[in-house]
């Protein structure tokens, strides 16, 4: 595998980074942001949407911020520990990502902006040629989606990040910066339902940091990750839950690795709380009903969907200390 050539840029501040992005946009040059590179660079080696320019965020000081309520995009996953003042739920989730080696490089920003995955997409060029290309990786070819053929609009690649649902149930917001300035929005509004677009980042915009509300500190949580091996593997399904001890109305549930985006199940939770109260089985049923995985990861979608029930039950059980 040969890394395609690209020009690497090292801006030293948010302003420089944004200016650089703006000038590249103006010149019509495509580029990617890179933090730890553990997601982007392997994709480049597979010739999955490589760009001629790559802008590193490593030189931006504020991107390295790490405090209980503010985590910069460049913070490596290995630093998300309780000892560093990070919320125990985030520490638990971060420790379940990939392997210890990868966690040294992989970052919070990278994990939140993780490219969606699909076994028709995450393949080498020769392989994709043999399926007559994939519409997510090889846009110029007019190829179809191989997961659900005969539809050429939506990409159903799966979002398999571990941190997002956990940040969601803690009520996190993300700060995005770009040529048009800075904006803050709840993390669950950051993702956009299309495996191709993935999130609401506009051209030239990047995720600078995640901010947690004060109330997050009162919350306890649980993250249930389904995977075949206890190392390396992306989640095949993941359920995060949190609440303020003894306050069912504070319950939040979010899922990952089941669709193109991680989802906060606020509506389902509210409904169940109203009818059944804090009932693990009822919650499990509601979340199970809300997600529709497709066949593009290691385990079959029917099974992954069934597991949503088990994982939700277990997460709620863990919250209630059973």
């Amino acid at each position, binding site marked *: 595998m040969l890394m395609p050539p690209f020009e690497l840029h090292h801006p030293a501040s948010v302003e420089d980074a944004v200016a650089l992005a703006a000038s590249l946009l103006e010149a019509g040059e495509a580029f990617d942001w890179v933090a730890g590179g553990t997601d982007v660079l392997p994709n480049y080696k597979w010739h999955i949407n490589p760009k001629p320019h790559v802008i590193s965020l490593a030189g931006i000081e504020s991107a390295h911020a790490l405090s209980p309520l503010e985590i910069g995009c460049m913070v490596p996953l290995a630093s998300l520990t309780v000892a560093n003042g990070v919320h125990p739920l985030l520490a638990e989730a971060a420790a379940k990502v990939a392997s210890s080696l990868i966690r040294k490089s992989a970052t919070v920003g990278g994990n939140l902006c993780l490219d969606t995955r699909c076994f028709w997409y995450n393949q080498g060029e020769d392989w994709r040629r043999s399926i007559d290309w994939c519409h997510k990786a090889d846009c110029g070819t007019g190829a179809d989606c191989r997961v659900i053929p005969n539809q050429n609009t939506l990409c159903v690649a799966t979002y398999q990040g571990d941190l997002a649902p956990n940040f969601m149930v803690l009520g996190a917001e993300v700060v995005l910066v770009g040529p048009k300035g800075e904006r803050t929005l709840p993390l669950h509004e950051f993702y956009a339902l299309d495996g191709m677009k993935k999130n609401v980042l506009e051209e030239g915009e990047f995720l600078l940091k995640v901010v947690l509300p004060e109330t997050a500190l009162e919350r306890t949580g649980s993250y249930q990750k389904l995977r075949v091996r*206890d190392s390396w593997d992306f989640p095949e399904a993941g359920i995060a839950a949190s609440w303020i001890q003894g306050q069912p109305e504070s319950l939040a549930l979010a899922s990952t690795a089941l669709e193109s985006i991680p989802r906060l199940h606020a509506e389902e939770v509210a409904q169940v709380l109203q009818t059944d109260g804090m009932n693990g089985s009822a919650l499990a049923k509601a979340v199970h009903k809300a997600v529709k995985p497709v066949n593009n990861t290691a385990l079959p979608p029917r099974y992954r969907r069934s597991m949503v029930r088990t994982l939700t039950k277990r997460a709620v059980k863990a919250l209630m200390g059973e």
Partner: protein
Amino acid sequence: MGSYKQQPGASSAEIRKDGKRVAGKQSFPPPGSGGSDPSMRPRDLDFIPETVGGREPKPAGDHIHDRARTGTSVGKAMPLVDSNAKVTGQAWYGDDVRLPGELIGKILRSPHHYARIKSIDTSKVEALPGVVAVATGQDAPNRFGVLPVTKDEHAMAVEKVRHVGDLVACVAAVDEATAIEALSLFEIEWEVLEPVFDPKEGLEDHDEPIHWRGKYHLARTNVQKRVFQEFGDRSLVNNPHAASHGSWTMLGVHHGFTEPHAVVAHWDPNGRLQLYTPQQVPHYTHRALSTVLDVPMHQINVIRTFVGGGFGGKSDPFPHEMCAALLARSSGKPVRITFDREEVYWINRGRHPSHIDVKMTADEEGRISSFDIDALIDGGGFASFGHVTSYYNGVLATAPYELGSFHYTGARVWTNKPASGAMRGHGAVNTRCAVEVGLDEMAESMQVDPIDLRLANLLPPHSRTISGFRITSNGMREALERVREGSNWDEKFRQLPLGKGIGIGCGFFISGSGLPIHWDPKNFPHATVHIQVDMDGGVTVHTGAADIGQGSTTAVAQVVSEVLALPVEMIHVRSHESDTSPVDLGSYSSRVTFMNANAAIRAAIEIRDQLLNAAWQMLGYHPNVLVLNDRRIYYKHDPSIGVSYLEALHKAQEDKGALIARGAYRSPPMGGVHKGAAAGLAPAYSFSAYVAEVDVDVETGLVSCTNVWAAHDCGKALNPLAVKGQIIGSCHMGLGQVLTEKMVYGRTGHLQNANLLEYKIPSVHEMPHVEAIIVESSDPEGPFGAKEAGEGPLLPILPAVVNAVYDAIGIRLRDLPLTPDVVYNGIEKHLKKTGLEDPLDLPSPRLQHGTLQATLKARGESHRERDRLRQRSEDTSAYVNGVLFGFDPDRPLADQVEGWREADEPLPEQLAELGFAGRAWLKKEQRHMEDDA
């Protein structure tokens, strides 16, 4: 015991303490020590057999090699001799070979599953600046293949491509980027053909069979090989006391070695090809290169680099090796080709995806009256080792149990997928799993303990299987007893709570293939070793045995060190080049330690005798009363009378120079005369028994194996450290196959997971604690009693885990691997069937011993004494499979019972009831179809 001073040029009294020399005397370090240790080490009696006066226990009696033991190396745990090179990163693997002026080769691969190449236009490729050479299938039309009977491969596709990733053309350029760019410039006109993916479809007639074998082709099917074997009295099958029937689907698995394939080819200034490749079997590559390139073998030097793991996946001659040689020949420069991981999966040669059906029956005395096996195996696009695999899937199930009858139908079909081939435990693994699980099921229906069922049905040492294999040493009973005890089986089996389980599995494997496939076994040895000892005393050993990490170089060094009583550091094994190595068949079928070490012992004994004869001349004592110990030869009854190793060596070298000896090993004539009788024949067999403990999460279907007790009979552990490494490594590989590893072919027939993230090899987290138990049955023909330990230990882990999962949840699962979705589906189905709702309410299976239990226990006890006497050759009466059923071993079995049959073709009335693979017998070969016409 005191130590004796060496006899250097200057005696110890004459050595000056001021560091100056004594006139006329040499003061170089003590001869032969090779280092600063001036003293001879005392004889290590703990490692000299009790049969020759030492203290090493020999429960199986004496061994022909006992007299060659010196207590130096054999039986001692020592690091592999090449471990320093590996741990310091200095070992040179395929891609580490960098020759000046090298070009980079890249291979154009088929994007189609099955297609005819109508034309290839290379003009644009050749016009690209930086491209130096281009080759297509037309440049090398000669066919090759690892087995002489099934040569169906070309360097690159000549007429058709047979799977996605099949080789179409290749190009050499000044750098990788140019070579990759060049691949996009080939203009190819394809005629896409209808592919076949399902091996069951492969049994049917097709317009365009994947290969064509002329008059031997089976109708118009894609059947590459069909096998029928039947032995014994089939009437026993009727009215069984107990029976089991299991239909299995086992997905293909890959070796998952660390080092991807890589090759460097260079035609030297004299026009000889120098080919560097990480090969398990350099000799076959040597032969294939000669055929494909039309160059005599003596004009080719195959240099085996360090091999970064092989496990059977680097034992075929490979088309990319031919490509590199072709590109290097036409460019006049060295060409290097290194695979991406994806390409590794496309060349494959992994374990065959299999449909296996096993039926078995037992009679009222708990004897196994029949095994019926049907194995349909998916060969992918090429034959590879498949001819042999087709036999092994059946015949390697004929032991370790005594059978009333045996019936096997097997078929290997070509499909449009990467070729399957040989992988650790070749051909035996899948059937073994099905058989061992069947026994577990049958034991349950008989209400007996499955270990007691096995112990009461074992073939004894020095016996013959139903198919005619010669069993010599046999440590099966000891292995079973030790895992039973170690795991505390009797307190756990069928007594653990839901989700916790324990299971048993056994294994049986060849230790070397009895038949060298390229020459007459009656005349030419399987393995040859040359030893050369020059004035410095260092011993150079030339062998063609390919060290693929299993430690064959260490084994050869150890046995030579043992015979010559020299420290292992003084033995230098040279095994990399075909120019200097004697011909060797390579590292497959677990033959290397058995055959090469045997050859090495013979060569070393010849050198030893030359040294002893020289000492005889010097001391006046006959070799019979001379003792060879650490760098010194002395009189048995007065150790002060002796000569140093170097003195004896120099005496022996007088007038003739370096001592040179060769040793060879050839297995004795064995086996029956029926068609396929040679498949599975081996000079010795290994036996193993494992107990595995698992945890099953009944709500997710996740299985984790927590503990394994792994007993393996390797005859004699030449190096216990290496044997334990092989046992633990085998466990890891087998666990992968039974729990997580699979080659996934999706809806469109594409291999979906050709990478190490999605091809899920267990990580350190999934690895259980493995208690490696070495059983030493001392094989009469093995080197110092040794047998294989590299492949056999893989077999039992699969059934042990599957049986343990049953013990944990009470559900028989027969789709491998047991990924969580497979287990969960099984649980869901079972819940539906039993009307339960919550998986946590599943009942755990329990065992209430039936009346047969006592019978089996008693028989097992009595057989233990039978086996001990036979193992020690105190009982040398004949024993053939069938004695347990009351047959007289000294008369032909067919004379004793009417229904006894030995057949290699089905009877017409059998045709209707054959299994999937058996259906291949409904078709006729082309030559017989013409007869009919």
